[in-house]
């Protein structure tokens, strides 16, 4: 059981007071980010990156901080789903279905408590799955050659839109734009200046951190300005917890099923947390059938999707940590942090940076416990924050993003670039070009080019090497499916999700 040994070492890293403090901070900030209007998990983690830099954190602490934020955001998203019927983030959408009816029946506190517990169970199952699966996958990934990696990157891009994605062509375009941006600067292999236009600041390429912060944070601000939803919401009270122990025990099978399903959805390319919570909810509805009162405030209808999306969020870390290929926006942002810490993600990370990998995994376990602890008594505090009007909040968040980016380089040139990315991001989002493939392209572009080069040098310029091994062919096939399936299955799935949302007493 060498895994257990590594895990113990991971705990030794994560349990130092310094790292524990940052895990707690991350869990707190993450919940905040999850529940605040207009701050999604990817967005929130992106803003934290420059801050982690300026704090001068050691790599393992920085990663622990960000993964805690990530886990926390998944907890926070449910609060506004339950109280306001507005999902705090996309995966929390399904929680509205039974959470809001429960709140209307005066059981808001119970819904919040059970969803926190289900989140904990889901997160725990997901993390245990991560611990078991990741080392195996990492060992397997060591056998990949450059051609397999190149095919794997194609797979990652092709499936990024997800099965529910709208227009796969737009994913392709977005990914290409991202990779194109990553080619700016001096070519690593030959020293040729590419697209630098003799501007000194461009020689080292475009820093993806400012691109990410600009694309997410600034475009979000612009969307809020356009929608003019600056006003706050009325204050809410949650009431007392009346949840009985019997009810809690009653939901345990639901939580376990939800967590496992969510984890699987998280690991698989193209599924992600939203689908994880959707599958968990629908399955639960079918398993329990007539015995449940789904859609009218069934307690298991709150537990299932929450366990699902937290299981999925841990599952999504598996491909990111073992292969260096993230499957979602937030894990892409975590990858950005790893790359900027000069850590090459991928299977070698498990041997070369075992302390970081296992520290992060242990921090996830600890983080889940911390989150459960702070989420039950402090829920009233987070609820109060829901009524902070975005018109004050978003400008401050934008300012923090400015400060973060400025304090990395102390150059206003970077800030102009960030604003430009923000404006560009606004237009692209308006045109329904997804931003996550752009980010992934920015991050993976250099690796893709390097692997392509290696593969072609090894084969003496023979391009067929890219699809000559069975594994590579498999990747190409899945990539192809990833682009074709959304056009075939996507409309049906999307309709179902929408139908499920409409069934519930959503409007009142």
């Amino acid at each position: 059981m060498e895994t257990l040994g590594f895990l113990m070492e991971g705990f030794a890293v994560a349990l130092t007071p310094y790292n524990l403090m940052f895990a707690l901070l991350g869990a707190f900030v993450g919940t905040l980010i999850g529940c605040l209007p207009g701050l999604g998990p990817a967005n929130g983690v992106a803003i934290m990156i420059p801050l982690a830099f300026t704090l001068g954190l050691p790599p393992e602490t920085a990663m622990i901080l960000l993964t805690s934020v990530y886990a926390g955001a998944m907890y926070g998203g449910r609060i506004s789903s339950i109280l306001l019927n507005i999902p705090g983030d996309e995966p929390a959408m399904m929680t509205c279905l039974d959470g809001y009816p429960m709140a209307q029946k005066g059981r808001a506190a119970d819904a919040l408590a059970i969803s926190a517990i289900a989140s904990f169970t889901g997160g725990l199952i997901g993390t245990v799955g991560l611990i078991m699966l990741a080392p195996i996958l990492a060992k397997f990934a060591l056998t990949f050659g450059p051609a397999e990696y190149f095919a794997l990157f194609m797979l990652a891009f092709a499936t990024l839109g997800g099965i529910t994605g709208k227009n796969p062509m737009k994913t392709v375009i977005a990914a290409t734009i991202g990779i194109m941006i990553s080619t700016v600067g001096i070519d690593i292999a030959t020293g040729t200046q590419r697209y630098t236009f003799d501007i000194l600041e461009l020689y080292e390429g475009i820093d993806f951190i400012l691109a990410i912060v600009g694309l997410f944070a600034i475009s979000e601000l612009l969307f809020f300005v356009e929608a003019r939803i600056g006003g706050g919401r009325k204050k809410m009270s949650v009431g007392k917890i009346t949840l009985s122990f019997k009810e809690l025990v009653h939901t345990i099978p639901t939580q376990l099923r939800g967590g496992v399903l969510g984890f699987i959805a998280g690991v698989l390319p193209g599924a992600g947390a939203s689908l994880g919570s959707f599958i968990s909810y629908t399955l639960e509805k079918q398993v329990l059938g007539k015995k449940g009162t789904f859609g009218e405030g069934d307690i298991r209808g709150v537990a299932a999707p929450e366990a699902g999306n937290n299981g999925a969020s841990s599952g999504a870390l598996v491909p990111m940590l073992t292969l260096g290929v993230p499957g979602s926006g937030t894990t892409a942002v975590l990858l950005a942090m790893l790359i900027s810490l000069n850590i090459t993600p991928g299977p070698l990370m498990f041997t070369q940076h075992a302390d970081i990998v296992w520290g992060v995994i242990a921090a996830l376990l600890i983080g889940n416990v911390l989150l459960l602890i702070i989420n039950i008594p402090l829920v009233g505090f987070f609820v109060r924050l829901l009524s902070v009007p975005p018109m004050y909040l978003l400008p401050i968040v934008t300012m923090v993003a400015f400060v973060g980016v400025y304090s990395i380089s102390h150059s206003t040139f970077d800030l102009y670039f960030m604003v430009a990315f923000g404006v560009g991001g606004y237009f692209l989002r308006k045109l329904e070009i997804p931003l996550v493939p752009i980010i992934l392209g920015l991050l993976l572009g250099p690796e893709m080019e390097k692997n392509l080069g290696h593969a072609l040098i090894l084969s003496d310029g023979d391009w067929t090497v890219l699809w000559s091994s069975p594994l590579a062919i498999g990747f190409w096939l899945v990539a192809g499916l990833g682009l074709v399936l959304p056009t075939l299955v996507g409309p049906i799935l999307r309709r179902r999700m929408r139908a499920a949302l409409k069934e519930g007493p959503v409007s009142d």
Partner: protein
Amino acid sequence: MTGAGDRILGLGLLVLAVAYGWAAQQWPEPFGGAEGVGPETFPTILSVVLVAGSLYLMIKPDPDARWPVGKSALELAISVVVLVVYTLLLEPLGFVISTTLAVGTLSWRMGGTPVRAFLTGLISAVVVFVLFNYGLDLSLPGGLLEVN
């Protein structure tokens, strides 16, 4: 005309893709002679992919999004100008003053009352300034308020 947004984007991307691909062909051969893979190989592939993508956009555009007109568009333009001016003034005016102005203006334009908006700006600016400069030992520009 429906799909105008996607068509314009497609046209823009087509121009970009061609220019990007063309530029890649102009680089001098790297020292040591041409090999199977040069600095231009990867960009050339990308430009071909983007040409295909942009043509697809122009041929099969999605329905148009609703674009802001009139007042919303003006507010958006104001916000972008505020961000640019903020960047411009950050170093000469110093962090506290420029942040108060920027956050205040944004909050005000998003619907806050002027007094509360600028007060929010001032408070957040001072808090962040103190936190960064004294708590974290990072220097944000003091500007006009610099005490020597």
